[in-house]
């Protein structure tokens, strides 16, 4: 009998507590969890200058770092209430799935099939794929790469985009995939690959006196904030914030602050819309 009393008491307590919490907070559960923690956990790149870069043991800096701080200010009212974790192409997905990160802002290109795995915000930047070659090799354009090996990053969209371009032109390309950007640069220097190809903004960080960027550009790469599926509240908040900073010019300010080429937002939106439409088609087909 005593036990029954205890159980009903516990039930009543739980109910009133639960009710009072829902009554006070209007936040979605995903945002409420961040507020309860008092910190936003963000995965960023540590090796991409201008986007997410960390000097040895120093602070993270770059456009994506600034964006994360803006989001922390929006959610928690304090732009320093954000904890950065360096991610790579291989770790960013699993860290989202395990819940160790709230979001990943790490030059993550939005692609239709990726939208089936994770939720992405609307793009906050768009880049194109570029080609970095050694000056000594005498390569002047995409055509000279016919039959050569291109070094690309694992989990990058470069391979697909270049394969499509090569097929269109009737060229034949080989690919070698590497885990990090410095690995690709080393392979370019040692002559293992004829060309280092990733997003242009990333290539800018690897320019030195022995290499040069070819004039060619391929497929636009819109970057989005990635979230684990099912965080609708947080996704909407991020989307709203990105829309707001685009309207009030903050986004353009950040782009120029980090010396990045200006973004044509109308083009980004048109391209973005086609990606989400394509993802819906994919989802239906399965």
């Amino acid at each position, binding site marked *: 009998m005593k036990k029954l009393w205890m159980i009903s008491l516990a039930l009543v307590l739980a109910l009133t507590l639960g009710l009072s919490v829902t009554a006070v907070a209007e936040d979605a559960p995903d945002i409420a969890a961040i507020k309860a923690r008092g910190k936003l956990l963000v995965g960023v790149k540590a090796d991409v200058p201008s986007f997410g870069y960390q000097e040895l043991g120093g602070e993270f800096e770059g456009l994506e770092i600034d964006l994360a701080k803006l989001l922390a200010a929006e959610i928690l009212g304090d732009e320093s209430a954000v904890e950065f974790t360096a991610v790579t192409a*291989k770790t960013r997905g699993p860290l989202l799935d395990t819940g160790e990160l709230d979001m990943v802002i790490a030059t993550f290109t939005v692609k239709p099939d990726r939208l089936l795995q994770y939720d992405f915000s609307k793009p906050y930047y768009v880049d194109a794929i570029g080609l970095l070659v050694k000056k000594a090799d005498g390569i002047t354009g995409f055509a000279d790469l016919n039959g050569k090996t291109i070094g690309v990053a694992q989990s990058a969209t470069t391979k697909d985009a270049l394969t499509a371009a090569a097929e269109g032109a009737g060229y034949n390309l080989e690919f070698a995939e*590497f885990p990090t950007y410095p690995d690709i640069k080393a*392979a370019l220097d*040692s002559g293992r690959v004829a060309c280092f190809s990733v997003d242009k903004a990333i290539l800018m960080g690897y320019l030195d006196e022995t290499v040069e960027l070819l004039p060619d550009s391929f497929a636009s790469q819109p970057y989005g904030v990635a979230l684990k599926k099912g965080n609708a509240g947080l996704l909407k908040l991020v989307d709203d914030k990105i829309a707001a900073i685009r309207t009030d010019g903050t986004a353009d300010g950040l782009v120029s602050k980090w010396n990045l080429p200006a973004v044509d937002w109308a083009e980004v939106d048109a391209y973005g819309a086609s990606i989400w439409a394509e993802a819906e088609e994919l989802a239906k087909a399965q």
Partner: protein
Amino acid sequence: MNGPFSWRNWLTWFQDWQYFLQGFGRTLWISFLGLFFTLLIGVAVGLVLCGKSRALKRLCKAYMSFFQNTPLVIQVFIYYNMLPKLGIMMGTVTIGVVSLALYTGAYAADIVASAIRAVPLGQMEAAQSQGFSYMQSMMRVVLPQAVKVGLPPMTNQAVNLIKNSSVMAVVAGGELMYCTDSWSGNNLIYGPAFVMTGILYLIICLPTSMLARHLEKRSLKDA
């Protein structure tokens, strides 16, 4: 069901299983050749260690210390990115075989040497008293007995070699681990990819280490 192990992710893996098979084949090929040269190096260096030439012994000890005490991944990186600067351009399969053989060979030499030392000295003396030369006694009398002692630990090294072949993924080696990294990166599907790759490694390594255990038991029984 969503998440890394959703049925859709498994389905995608099963559509592309042949890509993994191709990587698996290359892992087997690199491991097989690597093991062959490991045994050659192991026996050659092991014989030197038990021999009389002090200069050769010192040379072999230097080789073993260097390769046992530097990470394999750094050795592979040097073959891949530094040697081309000296005009030596090896393909990734060759790098895999050379690096695994030199690395595992350094351990195999120790095994061979201690297996030879485990054979009673009297065996060598008896063979030589019958008119066999040193080399003949080694090949016909001592080594066949040493094999029994050395085989179980050598089989463990074979398992290590197969697992270590996965470091080739860092230099675009095209073997199983590289295929897994590449595929899971492209699809953002890592759940089924890594589970199935783990199973594929298990398929080769488990029977090998079971063989080692069996051989060990048998040699204990004989002793």
